[in-house]
């Protein structure tokens, strides 16, 4: 049997529970505004430290997310900054290609070079244009700097180019001065694949260093006038009848990203590939043209400014000269006296 203290203890528990239950029910069935105001009061007093703790936790969580976003933005910016020089270079190459396409008289197909990470990349190139675009075998391929090679095989959407670095590459060429002709082929002297040889030049025809060598148009594959390279020296000579010159190639197939495929080459393309000095002159000429345009625009601006000044001065004069009209009831119906003409004061 339970003792008196235990009974009172149980009764007290029950009473406490019933009081708590009753208060809960009061809170539950009281108007919403009461509940909300009680909650707000508790949040502002007893629960304030807990709310503060929760706010700190949320801030910590969101600051972590923000830090992650900022880190991602910084990484993206660093990545973009890293790629900026190559983007500028590509932009410049594309500009040059655009200029070349404007200068070309024959029709062409623009193609992207799909480089492969192989040791032989540079000897043959995969292009993003094929027979669907009008490309056919033996079409010459050029870059803004000069000759790249010739189309070796064509698929529907792609084509393979044999570049000048390929061991079987040959092109009939002549010097820009026209005093020597021969055949250009990749260098076999062990200097490296990045050099060309200008072979079969008669011993009597001396070609100075720096002379530009162009395709001659003989053979019908390459049109006349495409730069192949520039003479850098003599490789060897066979006494009495032939000299072989080393050429610095005009275009580098290993680094080229976009090319033009000449689909119906004809005539002399020499004008489409101006020499370095000509390009410089053209650039200076365009700069001069821009400067001249700027100066004309500046002169027009000056003239406008002067005109505005003079008009303002005239208006000042006329406001000073013009008499103030006094309106009287008698003169309202009568003829209006002519106002002072501003232009007169100018005279």
């Amino acid at each position, binding site marked *: 049997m339970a003792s008196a203290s235990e009974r009172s*203890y*149980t009764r*007290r*528990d*029950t*009473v*406490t*529970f019933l009081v*708590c*239950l009753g*208060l*809960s*029910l*009061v*809170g*539950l*069935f*009281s108007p*919403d505004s*009461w*509940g*909300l105001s*009680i*909650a*707000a009061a*508790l*949040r502002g007093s*007893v*629960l304030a430290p*807990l*709310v503060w*703790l*929760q706010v*700190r*936790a*949320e801030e*910590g*969580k969101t600051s972590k997310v923000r830090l992650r976003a900022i880190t991602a933005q910084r990484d993206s910016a660093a990545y973009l900054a890293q790629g900026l020089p190559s983007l500028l270079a590509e932009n410049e190459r594309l500009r040059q290609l655009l200029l070349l396409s404007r200068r070309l008289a024959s029709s062409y197909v623009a193609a992207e070079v799909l480089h492969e990470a192989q040791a032989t990349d540079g000897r043959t190139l995969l292009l993003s244009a094929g027979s669907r675009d009008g490309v056919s075998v033996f079409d010459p391929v050029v870059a803004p700097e000069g000759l790249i090679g010739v189309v070796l095989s064509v698929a529907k959407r792609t084509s393979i180019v044999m570049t000048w670095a390929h061991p079987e590459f040959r092109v009939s060429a002549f010097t820009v001065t026209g005093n020597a002709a021969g055949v250009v082929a990749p260098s076999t002297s062990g200097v490296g694949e990045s050099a060309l040889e200008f072979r079969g030049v008669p011993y009597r025809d001396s070609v100075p260093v720096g002379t530009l060598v162009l395709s001659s148009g003989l053979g019908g594959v390459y049109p006349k006038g495409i730069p192949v390279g520039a003479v850098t020296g003599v490789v060897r000579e066979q006494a009495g009848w032939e000299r072989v010159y080393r050429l610095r190639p005009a275009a580098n197939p290993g680094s080229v990203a976009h090319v033009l495929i000449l689909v119906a080459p004809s005539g002399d393309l020499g004008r489409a590939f101006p020499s370095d000095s000509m390009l410089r002159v053209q650039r200076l000429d365009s700069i001069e043209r821009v400067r001249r345009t700027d100066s004309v625009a500046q002169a027009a601006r000056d003239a406008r400014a002067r005109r505005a000044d003079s008009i303002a001065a005239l208006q000042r004069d006329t406001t000073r000269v013009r008499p103030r009209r006094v309106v009287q009831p008698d003169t309202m119906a009568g003829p209006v006296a002519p106002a002072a003409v501003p232009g007169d004061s100018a005279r």
Partner: protein
Amino acid sequence: MIPARASRLQLGMVFLLLIVLHFYVRPRLGASRASPDFLFVGLLLYAMRSPPGAAALAGFAIGLAADSLTPARFGAATLAHTVVGYLASWTRAVFFADNLLVNAAFVASGLWLRDLIVLAVSGSADRSLLTELAVYSPLQAVTSALFALLVLLAFREWFSIRLDA
């Protein structure tokens, strides 16, 4: 009654830790619906070692705090916590309160009962009531019970837990 060897100060420290966990760590956890309810774990651990009146009072206080912080239906959480705290204190006489698994089971079932009362009193729609009671509430009950196990194991001396039972 709280065992003699566990001082009130020590248990107070545990409950303070649970409060900090509830308000500072819980918002940082990913799945808030399934993350353990640290305050409820504290209430159950307290209720199983206290007289029913004190347990009901503790439940009332925690429920009031819950209602003040999420006032969807003021009074619902107060009612639920009061009832669960009182019942938990009464039922400890029936079960072995010093058993680890019994404590964990109490936490899990108590949390599910609390959710049932809160949802029923709040007037939730049938479909959401079923989803809550069938999916989220059991998930939270399991995580809370697991966390209660961890607390009891870490502070078993203070809570007089018998591991050989």
